[in-house]
């Protein structure tokens, strides 16, 4: 790893650490408790950034997949796959924090709301993505199939969202806050989103680097076998 990379990673780690501490402070100390829903509302500062990151992750997978099929460079596949892995983890967190928030506020664990349902469908699609990669007969085939699913799966997002939204129109729309977001709440949310985005970037760089290294090890093993 050259100096540039080390410097960039150092800056990212430092930034991520500072943002995370700031986010924790703001969520638990700085921001006032929302008066209608109480203390549970603070999970919002975790839930929303995680949801944002999972959509970002699948978008990156989509772009990485297109670039891989076009340029046939392994690095794009490594990015696409790493991003999908992080995306699945974050979507899982969305699907866990959503119900934790929903139960005390609405009295129900699950609502077939457009955002939650789209997250669930996305989770299913990208779990299938990871499954196909691990069940392909060769890594190169796995990369190619993964790229196809990464593209075909992502273009489903707007259609699923639209469909579920229309499907549920007869139900009362979910109200998050009666008064909208106050300035401290908005600032806390922004810091949290920034913190989780940096965390996402770090995880993808790490994971993609690992994959590139794995590929390198495979190549070395082949050479050694000669």
């Amino acid at each position, binding site marked *: 790893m050259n100096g540039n990379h080390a410097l960039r990673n150092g800056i990212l780690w430092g930034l991520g650490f500072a943002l995370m501490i700031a986010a924790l402070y703001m969520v638990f100390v700085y921001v006032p408790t929302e008066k209608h829903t109480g203390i549970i509302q603070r999970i919002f500062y975790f839930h929303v950034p995680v949801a944002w990151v999972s959509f970002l992750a699948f978008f990156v997978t989509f772009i990485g997949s297109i670039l891989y099929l076009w340029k046939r460079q392994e690095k794009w596949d490594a990015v696409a796959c790493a991003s999908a892995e992080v995306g699945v983890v974050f979507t899982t967190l969305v699907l866990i924090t959503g119900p934790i928030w929903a139960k005390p506020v609405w009295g129900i664990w699950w609502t077939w709301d457009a955002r939650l349902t789209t997250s669930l469908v996305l989770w299913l699609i990208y779990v299938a993505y990871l499954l196909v990669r691990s069940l392909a007969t*060769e890594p190169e085939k796995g990369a190619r199939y993964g790229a196809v699913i990464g593209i075909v799966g992502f273009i489903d997002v707007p259609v699923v969202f639209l469909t579920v939204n229309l499907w549920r129109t007869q139900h009362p729309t979910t109200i998050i806050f009666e008064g909208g977001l106050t300035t401290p709440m908005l600032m806390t949310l922004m810091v949290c989103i920034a913190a989780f985005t940096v965390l996402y970037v770090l995880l993808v760089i790490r994971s993609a680097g690992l994959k590139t290294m794995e590929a390198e090890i495979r190549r070395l093993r*082949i050479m050694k076998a000669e």
Partner: protein
Amino acid sequence: MNKDIPNSSIRAVEARGLEKTFGEQRALRGVDLTVSRGECLVIFGPNGAGKTTLLKILSTLVKPSAGSVRLDGIDIRDKPAQIRRRISLVGNQTFLYDNLTVYENLKFYGKMYDVADLENRIREVISWVGLESRLHDRAGTLSRGMQQRASFARAVIHDPSILFLDEPDVGLDPHASAMVSDILGNINSGSRTVVMTTHNLERGVELGDSIAILDRGKVVYQASREELSKADFRQIYDRYTETGR
């Protein structure tokens, strides 16, 4: 279509530095091959030498990890459709649909290749392989040997100028296997370029204008028929395929 015969000095098959890696396994490790027009190249090699992979790459089915292939002077990446019209492959699988008759199979493939005057062409190729009496039987009901003959008929339905044969006599009894050679004589009246892999040293040496040995993904020996006497070839083969094991 495409019956324009390019300059005859152009090689029928020209492969440069072919490499193919499957996962952690290197099937081909830099193969160079040239075959002149109308020539028959026979490739020998032990199991796992990369013979099938090589033929699949030459016939556009598999993309090489590195290297290039030119058939009749055209790079196979440039005009795949034009290349595919000129070539054919007989594998150890017949590519026939068991539930269709031999005739229906030939008609299907003939139409896929836009063969003109298809009915007559089917009659012609079926007589070459001697299957006239079974033309309207389902391919699945034929014996292995007959299926292989039908597979030859399928392979030449569009009059390819280059024919790839991947162990065409494997799994056949000696009688059927001898028939394969006769058929090859019938369908190949000297105008077609043939690249063939086989285990059968005697027959291979008889058929080939030139001979190559592929071992562990590399061409380890190459000679024309004039350069080699049949008696020695067994020894040569053993020597080249044993070294380094």
